[in-house]
């Protein structure tokens, strides 16, 4: 076709009108489109920034914030800057401390200083309070003698080392505490005393319970999703309504319903006793069992839906092809159908697991002390003891664990990693 060649796009187009090269015009056209795309996502990007990234970021910084000494005793810290730590500090440091404690006296700052230093050395609180009561000093007397006269501890190196240690603007203290670690007097990171170790256990428990719930959801959800994917549209819509039904009730109501069902005089226990499986009520509430039952019930749709959407896309002809090639039904399912559902298992599993990791209300209402997960402690520190540093540090640990999990998922199971998908 000779006429086709004449209009072929392969021929370089001459620059038009203003003589701008083609490439430049293309870039200009693309730029306009890119700006439009940018404008389309801008509102959401702003909302995410203001309502999500910024608050989370500032909460996380609270976890490493260390303002008490840094803000209230700046001159003392300056005087201690060149201090060797092996001999008592110079007179200037004593004077600066005496002045700053005197200035803080009577304000909330003194309590903050006392509390913060007490964390370094037990007994510091009473030392600071006792000293502050006798301040300000007579300007004629050397501050060093005067302070040591108030309490002999001011002559000890450990007392000053504590101020020096606590003086940084940032501290790893809360983060370390969140993984049961402390910094000892020599500045080494060591395991916390045995009776204070708790959060590693809680974190492991959170992981373990999330894993159990995820596995239960998968075991229960997979057959349902498979059935839904293979039924006619009318029947699968009906099943879908049953799967989605729990979504339309509040979590609190569902948890309350489980309390009614599972309590000692509840329906389940009465049924068990009536059919003679047990003589006395079985404890079903305020233990792991109750928590698992309720969590699986609440999270099941999050497993079924991704599985269903993936299975719906798998043509039944693959199974037929496998059968026609001589492969028995179960093996065909395992070798041909199941591997194609992996993206759905990955997505559903990740969704359920991550939601479990942050679960608070269900374990708090249905579990005993041994079923509380990490979020419970975050809530405890924010609502009960107002220890924002600890709450922030535990949140950071939870966030890090979740991100780590997501990275593992993206690396090994994510949609971009499943080989045949990548080939597309």
């Amino acid at each position: 076709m000779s006429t086709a060649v004449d209009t072929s796009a392969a021929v370089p187009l001459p620059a038009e009108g203003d003589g701008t090269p083609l490439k430049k015009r293309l870039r200009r056209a693309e730029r306009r489109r890119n700006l439009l795309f940018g404008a389309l996502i801008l509102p959401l990007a702003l909302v995410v920034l203001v309502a999500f990234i910024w608050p989370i970021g500032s909460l996380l910084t609270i976890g490493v914030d260390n303002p008490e000494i840094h803000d209230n005793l700046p001159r003392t810290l300056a005087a201690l800057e060149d201090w060797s730590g092996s001999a008592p500090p110079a007179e200037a440091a004593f004077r600066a401390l005496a002045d700053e404690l005197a200035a803080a006296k009577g304000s909330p700052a003194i309590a903050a200083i006392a509390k913060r230093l007490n964390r370094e050395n037990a007994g510091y609180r009473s030392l600071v309070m006792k000293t502050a009561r006798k301040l300000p000093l007579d300007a004629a007397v050397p501050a060093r003698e005067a302070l040591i006269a108030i309490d002999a501890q001011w002559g000890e190196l450990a007392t000053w080392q504590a101020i020096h240690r606590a003086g940084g603007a940032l501290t790893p203290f809360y983060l370390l505490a969140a993984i049961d670690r402390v910094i000892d007097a020599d500045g080494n990171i060591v395991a916390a005393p045995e009776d204070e170790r708790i959060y590693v256990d809680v974190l492991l428990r959170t992981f373990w319970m999330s894993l159990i719930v995820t596995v239960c959801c998968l075991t229960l959800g997979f057959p349902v999703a498979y059935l839904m994917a293979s039924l006619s549209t009318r029947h699968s819509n009906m099943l879908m309504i049953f799967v989605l039904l729990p979504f339309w009730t509040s979590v609190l109501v569902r948890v309350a319903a489980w309390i009614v069902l599972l309590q000692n005089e509840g329906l389940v226990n009465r049924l068990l006793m009536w059919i003679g499986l047990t003589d006395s009520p079985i404890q079903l509430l305020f233990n792991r069992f109750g928590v698992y039952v309720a969590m699986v019930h609440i999270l099941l749709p999050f497993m079924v839906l991704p599985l269903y959407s993936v299975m719906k896309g798998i043509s039944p002809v693959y199974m037929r092809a496998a059968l026609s090639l001589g492969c028995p039904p179960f093996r065909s399912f395992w070798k041909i159908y199941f591997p194609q559902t992996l993206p759905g298992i990955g997505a559903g599993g990740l969704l359920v697991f991550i939601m479990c990791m942050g679960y608070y209300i269900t374990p708090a209402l249905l579990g005993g002390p041994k079923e509380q997960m990490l979020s419970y402690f975050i809530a405890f520190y924010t609502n009960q003891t107002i220890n924002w540093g600890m709450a922030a540090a535990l949140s950071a640990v939870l966030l890090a664990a979740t991100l780590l999990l997501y990275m593992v998922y993206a690396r090994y199971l994510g949609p971009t990693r499943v080989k045949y998908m990548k080939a597309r």
Partner: protein
Amino acid sequence: MEAVHNSQAPHVSFRNVQKTYDGETLIVRDLNLDIRRGEFLTLLGPSGSGKTTCLMMLAGFETPTGGEIRLDGEVINRVPPYRRNIGMVFQNYALFPHMTVADNLRFPLRVRKLAANEVEARVKRALGMVQLEAFGSRYPQQLSGGQQQRIALARALVFDPQLVLMDEPLGALDKNLRERMQLEIKHIQQNLGITVVFVTHDQSEALTMSDRIAVFNHGVIQQIDAPEALYEYPTNSFVADFIGENNALDGTVVAVAGEECDVRLDCGTVLRARTGNVGAGGRARIAVRPERVQLAGEGEGANRLDATVRELIYLGDQIRLRVELAGKHEFTIKAPISQLDRSLRPGDAIRVGLDPAHTRALDVPAAH
């Protein structure tokens, strides 16, 4: 290779096979069909005619509601599909997306627990057969439609089945590729000497590839014959209309004389034609192919008709004439360019001849 079979015994036979899905309408009415060993048989018909259902019953994915299907003399109604050892090529290839091309081909061999070196040798041979040796490590999605089609064919053949079923395997390909693949499949079938049952709704595909064609309509085989016989000697109107182009003129049979009969058209003209499925006194439809109409119809003889040219369509190798004839507005004539008077114009009166040997009196299909 299997033991020597009696070449006269049918490879597959359907006996009084029926199939219904809803218990009310029969998708397949009463099917009796013998498939010869080593033949290329095409099941041709419009959608819903039961041809695919027949194929699926043979593959084992559907169970006959009545009758029996025999493979090598054994009744296989209750044999599950994975024990039938029948190769199958599906409409959209059904290559396993999570396996490479080579793994797709290894799959049926590993299921049969063949030794590793035997597996590799066969995979290599199968890829060579479809000329895709270099593509073993790719995933199906990385291949073009034609390449996927070849791999699907190789996979259906790699375990040496004696019978291969194909369910509209070329439907998704473009025209040129489809025509090339038709010949390629035909050659592979001839080289291997296997029996192929091929389902299609494309009559030219059926004519190109088949040794025999079974034309289906409403769950019944209308005619089963070699392509030429089917085209030249259709036994009813459905087959005449479904395969190739056909001109139809309605009338009444006035006399039957052996193989020939006289039909009085509704306009009064009497035509002589070969007797099809009609009897004296009954309504009949004269069927004649556009290329069998003689344009040099001057002079006297049987079946001469006056016609008026309405339209001339130039097609390069031939001219199509749409003429008005015997009160019918849509009558088509195909003529080679060399045999046509180029001075013809719409409105010209011509005389055409219908050779009685190529004119058939068939049934008038019931109006739907």
